[in-house]
């Protein structure tokens, strides 16, 4: 079923706000990892704490989240992650 197909991506960050090495942090400076799950319906990303020495992501330490529905927001401009945490997704952005 095409809906079950998933693509995973990830990206590291040195801090929660943009800084000179945000684009390309060296391993030792990585503090956050953004893990994305993509299907043909949505893209869901959580930015979680990351330990570069143990190579461990801490999924209970969520720094931020992103959720975009492909049908209602194909350009991914309306992040509804926070809404989704409280179950109040605006009808205009529902899939």
């Amino acid at each position, binding site marked *: 079923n*095409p809906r079950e*197909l*998933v*693509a*995973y*991506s*990830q*990206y*590291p*960050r040195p*801090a*929660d*706000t*943009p*800084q*000179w*090495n*945000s*684009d*390309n*942090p*060296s*391993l030792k400076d*990585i503090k*956050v*990892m*953004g893990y*994305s799950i*993509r*299907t*043909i319906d949505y*893209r869901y*990303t959580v*930015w979680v704490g990351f330990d570069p020495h143990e*190579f461990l*992501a801490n999924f209970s330490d969520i*720094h*931020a*989240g*992103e959720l975009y529905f492909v049908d209602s927001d194909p*350009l*991914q*401009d*309306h*992040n*509804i*992650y*926070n809404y989704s945490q409280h179950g109040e997704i605006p009808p205009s952005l529902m899939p």
Partner: protein
Amino acid sequence: TDALNVLLIIVDDLRPSLGCYGDKLVKSPNIDQLASHSLLFQNAFAQQAVCAPSRVSFLTGRRPDTTRLYDFGSYWRVHAGNFSTLPQHFKENGYVTMSVGKVFHPGISSNHSDDSPYSWSLPPYHPSSEKYENTKTCRGQDGELHANLICPVDMADVPEGTLPDKQSTEEAICLLEKMKTSASPFFLAVGYHKPHIPFRYPKEFQKLYPLENITLAPDPEVPDSLPAVAYNPWMDIRQREDVQALNISVPYGPIPVDFQRKIRQSYFASVSYLDTQVGHLLSALDDLQLANNTIIAFTSDHGWALGEHGEWAKYSNFDVTTRVPLMFYVPGRTTSFPEAGKMLFPYLDPFDSASQSMEPGMQTTDLVELVSLFPTLASLAGLPILPPCPVPSFHVELCREGENLLKHFGSHDLEEDPELRG
């Protein structure tokens, strides 16, 4: 019964801004022609939107959390595990494997050797003119030479009178001519540098994209709801002289809109220049009568943001930076064999408007990942199938963390491939 050759074309920082992906503006007739004879994946995604981690991931068939390469600073065989690579698998199964241009990312992440001797039968080729890529070779309006982001060049004006991708195409054609008479099958990987920055291309390609036809990105503002951690501040292009001169505020910019359009114009011009290089390579393969027994895979290491969400460059999890072109031409499987004497890949000139429309080939919208390239190419060539990796798999030299995409190539493969029959 003869083994199929493999030509793997990897394009640096190419997003699916191509005619065969529905882009109405970009002129890419040679890549579109390849697509018309291929299976094209509309939704293929890289595992990390930056060069070395993405390339090591798809060339080993492992995810970044297994290669443990998120930057440019480690070599997986030392740092994570002695994972076999895609070319190594072919080399160990009787192929002559060759690398031209940027296949592995140069430097520590490929052991300063493009992972030779493991991956390659011959010393990897790097174009001599690459050393000028980031030097002052861009003539500014002041008539002086600068190290700019936007760098249309007069070929008579550039050092050595050539550009890296032109040299790579010449070298690849040379190797094809040599392999034509070889008893062994070949695996040739050609890594093109453009449209990676700087946008340094023969200036005539700018004429294909008159500035008045270039729009801004459909969503050029940084979205209010975007978490600050998700935003990429595009620090690399800010180092270029022409961008520095704009005094753009850090981290959110914005870039003045006329310069935004110039960046987009030069990215597209670089894509059309690259398309001509692919066209020369494929028409040479055809001229050498190798198209009927060579699999061609075409992809890139990640995409590139052209102003969407107020971002430029890669370095993020957005679709515009992770989605990549991915297509496979398999003789007799994705297209029927041409009549005798007919060419499948005649060179098409992007300046010739007649060479624009192209019949699409096989396509699928199913979501796939770049990490599936290795197991899929190995299967298409009839090599031993890669088993799924256990978790963790640091101790396993040969396995796959991606899917084998063979099922997308048509049902008759199911009988041939026991792994897929289930």
